[in-house]
């Protein structure tokens, strides 16, 4: 019999920084922090190789609470900062935290380019459908007509959907969970961590102070099962307390139709089966509108493509083939002439 001696593993405690957590009591961000702290030690990455990068917002305070390297940058620019970090040192595990304002209002362009490049970073977007840090103005994910400090007569802006946006920009991993989802959130974060390339996770988050209960219907225990469509790859799309409701393709209308009493009448074989690798299915899922349909949670789409880092590595190979020596060689390249000593 061999004895397995466990080497000292990192624990959750190792990743909790000593900073006072400065979110409001009751903020959903606490739940996300605790799920993140559960996942990090599992990844078997040395502490010093993690970098948490954020923009500005309540959500963007996140890096202070994780005892790794961290960069609390400026509003909306975290993806750009992260690109630089990875370009300097591709072996780092870089995690971005952004908000619905930080990531989709001022920072939308950088997020788009991050997605299309497939930079190998994890992007956690805390969507509370409000500007928290600036005290309650509407955000790009706020509902049309929402009354806030900056929209006393209701917002005139149609919201953007983070998931559809990410898919439209060519993101290779797109998932959704919520602040208090516990094991579900941990699972999704774990999947994101393992994805090579940009992993986008929308996390529905409750802003207790300025937009309380925005996701109540989805997240509260009583209505959760009716309103959540929990996705599992290879499994049919079912929901409801007894998993007795499902979704099936209606080719005539090119949409997903609801099927009741799944299982009892054996209709489950006609149900749509989740396939993470299908970009079109992801679109079907992304366009389900709540509350008519349940909200898809889990990994909507995952596809393995070369990362930006892979491409850079490829350039290195190309460059080496044509490389013409070191620095001195460079300086004296081109047409040169020697002036002899007089």
């Amino acid at each position: 019999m061999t004895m397995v001696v466990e080497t000292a593993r990192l624990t959750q405690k190792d990743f909790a920084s000593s900073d006072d957590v400065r979110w409001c009591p009751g903020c959903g961000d606490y739940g996300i922090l605790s799920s993140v702290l559960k996942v990090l030690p599992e990844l078997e990455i040395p502490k010093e190789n993690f970098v948490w990068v954020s923009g500005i917002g309540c959500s963007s305070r996140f890096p202070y609470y994780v005892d790794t390297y961290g960069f609390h940058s400026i509003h909306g620019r975290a993806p750009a900062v992260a690109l630089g970090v990875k370009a300097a040192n591709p072996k780092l595990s870089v995690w971005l935290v952004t908000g619905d304002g930080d990531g989709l209002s001022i920072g939308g362009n950088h997020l788009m380019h991050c997605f299309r490049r497939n930079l190998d970073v994890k992007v956690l977007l805390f969507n509370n459908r409000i500007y928290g840090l600036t005290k309650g103005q509407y955000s790009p994910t706020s509902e049309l007509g929402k009354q806030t400090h900056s929209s006393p007569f209701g917002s005139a802006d149609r919201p953007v959907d983070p998931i559809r946006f990410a898919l439209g920009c060519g993101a290779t991993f797109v998932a959704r969970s919520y602040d208090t989802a516990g094991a579900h959130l941990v699972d999704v974060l774990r999947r994101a961590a393992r994805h090579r390339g940009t992993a986008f996770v929308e996390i529905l988050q409750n802003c207790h102070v300025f937009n309380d209960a925005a996701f109540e219907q989805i997240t509260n225990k009583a209505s959760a099962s009716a309103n959540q469509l929990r996705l599992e790859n290879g499994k049919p799309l079912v929901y409801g307390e007894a998993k007795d409701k499902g979704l099936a393709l209606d080719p005539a209308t090119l949409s997903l139709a609801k099927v009741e009493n799944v299982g009892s009448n054996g209709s489950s074989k006609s149900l749509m089966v989740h396939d993470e690798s299908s970009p079109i299915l992801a679109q079907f899922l992304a366009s389900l509108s709540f509350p008519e349909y349940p909200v898809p949670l889990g990994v909507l789409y995952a596809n393995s493509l070369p990362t930006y880092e892979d491409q850079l590595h490829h350039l290195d190979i190309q460059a080496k083939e044509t490389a013409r020596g070191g620095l001195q060689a460079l300086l004296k390249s081109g047409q040169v002439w020697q002036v002899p000593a007089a």
Partner: protein
Amino acid sequence: MQNESEVPSNKPEIVVNGAVIRFAGDSGDGVQLTGQRFTSAVALAGNDVATLPDFPSEIRAPAGTLYGVSGYQLQFASKDVFTPGDSLDVLVALNAAALQTNLSDLKPGGLLVVDSGALGAAQLKKAGYATNPLEDGSLSGYQVAAIDISTLTRKAVTPVGLSTKEAGRCKNFWTLGLIFSIYDRSLDTTLSFIAEQFKKKPQFAEGNSIALKAGYAFGTASELFHQRYRIAAAPRNPGLYRNIDGNTALSYGLIAGSVCAGRHLVLGAYPITPASAILQELSKHRHLGVTAIQAEDEIAAACLALGAAYAGAVGICCTSGPGMALKTEAIGLAVATELPMVIVDVQRAGPSTGLPTKPEQSDLYLAVHGRNGEAPVCVLAPATPAECFTVAYDAVRIAIRHMTPVIILSDAYLAHGAEPWLVPDVDQLPKFEQTALPPTELFTPMLRNDVTLARPWASPGTPGYEHRIGGLEKDYDTGQISVDPLNHERMVRTRAEKVARIADDMPECRIEVGASQGKLLVIGWGSTYGSIREAVAQLHAKGVSVGHLHLRGLCPFPRGLEAVMSAFGKILVAELNSGQLAQLLRAKFCLDIKSFTKIQGKPIRTDELMDRILKESEDYS
């Protein structure tokens, strides 16, 4: 092998000290290439040379338009040359519009070479000529060589089998050959350049070679030119030389800096005239540890450079005015996080989009003052194309040693201007000092070096130095977020003092040329170097009490500046803006400094500055 076309000429040869030549033509005429090849040839032959390319912002402006004219001016000589020259000894005008827009710069009695084949009625009209200048006597003050270059080129090249249009494109090499013959230059290096350049298109290689030789032969044979000119090599320190333009020199300086620092270089850049060439140059050298990223915009470029700096690389970004404006917020973050980052601004004429291809020095205020809050950064400016190398190298060195963003102010004139450059020996470059990290137990992100006040550069991947940083104010001791009032004041003053101490790391101020005390001190910065030096040298030689000081450090100012200034009765700052450096100096030293300003998208002319110097000297007495 002696080229058959380079037959020994029996024309009389006149020895002159130097010449100023401008090639001008349509954007499509290949004028820039002609100028570059001529520069290369004379430099290789040992002349000193300074150049002034000038081109429209349109890619291919419609043929024959006035705004579509492209020009390339150079001065070459048997002595040191500091400017591309004020007025022209030779003007080569390849079309009517070029003649129209450039003639006024030709010296009385100067040589005008004009392509008479490009002076058709329609072309003349487009260029605003009512009558043909070759016929209306308006050129009588010049030595005119009207040659149907278009036709002669086409005829020479036809045997190769190029189409008429393609044959027409060889006109620039024909012209180059002609000028080579006048200045008695060998065609060898140009021929090998052609061979290399058109390796994949042998027909073009042949066509251009033939055109070059035909032009040369024409010049030698034609009665139009009564003599040849000989300009001897300029005395030079021994060593290996090459021609270099400012953007290339700057790129090399940045690479040399990062290589000597033992760090990767990460460039974030977004294309913009006249800075794109730096992105393009740096993109070629991945094998030297350079990662050049074309970012989605200038904000991303600055932020990625900063992210790279955080992660231990030398973070660089390069841009021009409008892009610089966009980096304002990110540079503020670099100040707050105290990370080594170099920002290159190749200035062009503003405001806003302005005159995108023309030089100006009007981003000085933006560089020194353009950030929210108290956010001092180091600002440096190279004086000549070759000096772009030195200053870029130094910028990297200072950024790392002092843990601060450094802005380099170049401009469109330095960017494209070229001069011979003594290739430096890599082993002789100034050494880098980087403060070692303190032991982990003592580490805080804001622990400062006693001498420089630089904070430690602890990068992700280094165990034991995990820390968080950002744009909020930090505690002086712990580096944690702090809103303490006195701490904020201390941090603001410390960051300012850190930048002020960079002066200890710069050469003391010294007079470039002329008097080191006396009546008038002319101060300049950046690309006006040559014009100022030349103007001061000429007048000083004539007994005027004037000296020239040129600033490479604009923030902080170099040590000894006050002493140098106090040795003069009057101070005149010459710059290509409304007087920005003058204002900064007045503010700092409270001296009644005068301004010579020019805001025309053009360098200062030696003669206009000389006039002003004389005037100031007279007023003085």
